[in-house]
């Protein structure tokens, strides 16, 4: 899976969340998600991760755990922006595909 395909998955998740909330998440790789100047609080991040995991499983058949050890240990958090999250998700899906 390439980064454009995983980015589309993230955008689909954002569409779902934007329908449910007043403060919209802008669909751009530069959008800061979590942490300093991030749009999301912990609850918002849980919501986003949950929806993304659901879409990944539905569309690819792979179940990924986005909040995994790598994400927690990474000094540069994958949850910082859409771009960093996209890279992290792409790696997870590709690792999963290799193992399958």
């Amino acid at each position: 899976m390439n980064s454009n395909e995983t980015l589309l998955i993230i955008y689909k998740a954002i569409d779902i969340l934007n329908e449910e909330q007043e403060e919209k998440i802008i669909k751009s790789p530069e959008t800061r998600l979590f942490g300093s100047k991030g749009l999301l609080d912990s609850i918002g991040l849980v919501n986003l991760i949950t929806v993304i995991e659901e879409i990944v499983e539905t569309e690819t058949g792979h179940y990924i755990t986005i909040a995994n050890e790598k994400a927690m240990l990474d000094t540069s958090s994958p949850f910082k922006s859409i771009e960093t999250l996209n890279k992290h998700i792409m790696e997870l899906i590709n690792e999963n595909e290799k193992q399958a």
Partner: protein
Amino acid sequence: MKSKLEPRVVLITGTSRGIGRYLANHFLSKGDYVIGCSRTAGTISSERYKHYSLEITDDTSILLMFSDIRKEFKRLDILINNAAINPDIAFSVLVCSDAIHRAFETNIIAVMKICKEAVKMMVRKKKGRIINISSMAAKLEVPGESVYTATKVALNSYTKVLAKEVNAFGITVNGVAPSAIKTDLSARIDQDALMDVLARNAIPDFGEMEDVVNLIDFLVDDRSHAVTGQTIYLGGV
């Protein structure tokens, strides 16, 4: 939870015997779907019961079970973390380190991992009930039960914190600490010593399964949405 006409999807760990098995049969008798798991083969026969023989400390087995639940049931309404072990009843200096690890892995670490997956399923539905089966040992602090007690105290703290984290998603998390009930687990304890411990309670006798069921029915009820982060002791501990 769902109206009485709509069956709920209930996951209970440790359903091969004792409280877990009793609870599974209780929810089945109400028309709900029950998913159970244990290290051994399933002992419940029902069209609405699905059993997973697995080791709850094994991450992959847990993830596969949840993947199945998502595919087959699409949702999870109630999670009851019941599976627990008490591997070495002895004074702390005599307990082997393997027993300490096994107790913590089963009684608290596995619960955390299962809750993580369950919460993710409940978040999107904006509703869910999580019950962690605790123990009177957490309050009575009985000599010889240091490891088991420590795991249950940890479970009580985890229950409180998780309740705060998931309240925004309509999920409640509570602990149920039964008085000693006649199960395989309690049968392993010296019965005279157990009666001495029970004598410290307002009700100085064994509890009944039905007491546990009654409390859990209350906690999973829709109307109990404001009851969360509590560990409720039965028997007047």
